[in-house]
């Protein structure tokens, strides 16, 4: 058995990279990591601690071109005789994994949330998180795209070798004109803690309170759909069935009613806290902890309590 893990190392090693390598390790067999870009050897070598036997890197490929990355991963899969290929189910995987599936005629499991079961099936989110499906791959090579925050990285080995690899990918057909990277923001799909607010916040001018709580916790911010639609918050913060689906450890919902379409995208969260003035708000039924109260009064109090906790450490 040979496992190949593709990681995106363009901006350092993300937690999702450690998750996929640790996941691949659990499958057993020889584990090779394939990556591109400019990450240096010494940081790539640390992937050995999470289970990689070897890291292959093609520095001639920069960026995230889907055809180049498909060629890169296909040739690495060929060279190591990979039987399972693993991605983190992020925006790069969503573009590249389907292409690779066709190229290799290898069945693709998108959004895996667990290791394969004894019968080889893998559990995935379906119906935007309202249910789970168990998927079986019928081809000899399989591709698994692992949902971020579904698997804990495990560190217990040593550094591994890093070798350069050439995939002879042809030049990109997609010309990049510009790239904007928001500074210092935690990408929502990867965030462990999320503070989210809805129409109950009354207007964009009141989001300072929401951001204060997020900053105190070290959390990412999110919002309900109408809030993004009216332009109070950017579209990429919209979570739910027609927005981003997330599964953080903690989801704090402030002034959000908990409509079925909103719950679909967040009910995979480990713990849900709901702050709402309406005792009948459906969100309370999906919550672990509820606060029946006015967000404008509760939020500053909660932020203070978090700050106090951070200082005292307990």
């Amino acid at each position, binding site marked *: 058995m040979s496992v190949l893990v593709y990681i*995106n190392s363009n901006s350092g090693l993300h937690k999702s990279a450690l998750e996929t390598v640790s996941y691949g390790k659990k499958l057993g067999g020889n584990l090779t990591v394939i990556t591109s870009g400019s990450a240096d050897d010494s940081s790539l070598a640390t992937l050995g601690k999470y289970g990689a036997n070897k890291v292959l890197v093609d520095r001639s490929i920069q960026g*995230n071109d*889907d055809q180049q990355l498909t060629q890169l991963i296909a040739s690495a899969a060929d060279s190591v005789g990979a039987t399972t290929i693993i991605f983190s189910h992020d*925006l*790069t995987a*969503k*573009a590249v*994994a*389907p*292409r690779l*599936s*066709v*190229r290799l005629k290898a*069945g*693709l*499991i*998108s959004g895996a949330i667990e290791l394969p079961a004894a019968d080889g*099936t893998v*559990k995935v989110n*379906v*119906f935007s*998180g*309202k*249910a789970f*499906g*168990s*998927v079986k*791959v019928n081809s000899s090579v399989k591709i698994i795209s692992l949902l971020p925050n579904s698997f804990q990285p495990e560190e217990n080995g040593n550094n591994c070798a890093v070798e350069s690899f050439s995939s002879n990918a042809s030049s990109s*057909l*997609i*010309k*990049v*004109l*510009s*790239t*904007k*990277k928001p500074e210092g923001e935690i990408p929502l799909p990867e965030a462990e803690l999320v503070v989210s607010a809805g129409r109950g916040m009354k207007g964009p001018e009141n989001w300072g309170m929401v951001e204060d709580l997020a900053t105190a*916790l070290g959390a990412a911010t999110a919002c309900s759909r109408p809030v*993004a639609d009216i332009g109070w918050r950017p*579209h990429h913060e919209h979570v739910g069935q*027609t927005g981003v689906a997330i599964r953080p450890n*903690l989801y704090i919902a402030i002034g959000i009613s908990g409509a*079925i*379409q909103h719950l679909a995208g967040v*009910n995979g969260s*480990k*713990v849900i806290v709901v702050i709402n003035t309406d005792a009948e708000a459906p969100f309370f*039924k*999906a*919550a*672990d*902890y*509820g*606060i029946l109260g*006015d967000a404008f009064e509760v939020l500053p*109090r*909660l932020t203070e*309590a*978090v700050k106090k*906790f951070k200082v005292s450490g307990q």
Partner: protein
Amino acid sequence: MKILVCISKSPDTTSKIAFVDQNTKFDENGVQYIINPYDEWYALVRALEIKETLGGDVTVITVGPIADDAIIRKALAIGADDAVRIDADPTDAYYTAVQIAEYAKSNNFDLVLTGKETINYNGSQVAGMIAESLNMPFVSLASKLDVNGSTLTLEREIVGGLQVVEVSLPAVVSCAKGMAEQRIPNMRGIMAARTKPLQVVAPVSVELLTTYVNYTMPNAKSSCKMIDPMNMDELVALLHNEAKVI
């Protein structure tokens, strides 16, 4: 400009999700089907806007049984010129993508649009698979699309940021929020849709790469613990000691 818009049906977002036959099949009882919102709101409407400014044709295609003619008629009512239904169950993403790619190959489309994912299987697989089958560049999760002659300028989300890219036609693009606004079909559109051409095409034979074996439902939450709004120290303590998330 010839544009192909791939549409999929999905259960109405308020549908109760349940399974039958020992949890091996989605329970369609009482389920109302809609056009997958990403396909309708963004891919289809943007295609129509392009046609309205530059001319051309918008064809919608779906892989599905005869019951899906209802969602196809809705797409025609919104403004598509004609429709194709590949007469087969869309059993897995690969099967579906190959059917669409086979049709596209013999009909020379300049642009193939899809939604960014379906809201039932959430795979984000079909568009990339079509692109690979047609050997075309693929721009995923585009939130803006402009046409200048034979070049597209697009804005798309990438890991940790936003990118502006340019690509030559033909190309495949998956469409996300921001690209267009939902359109409600009017009476004239609904009437016109009745007589617009809907071609039914037999599927090609394709092996299934994946199979959904069965389904499960998430465990229901046990009851919600209510916290005194005056006592946020208690909440923080519970999150730390009991839930262990901070």
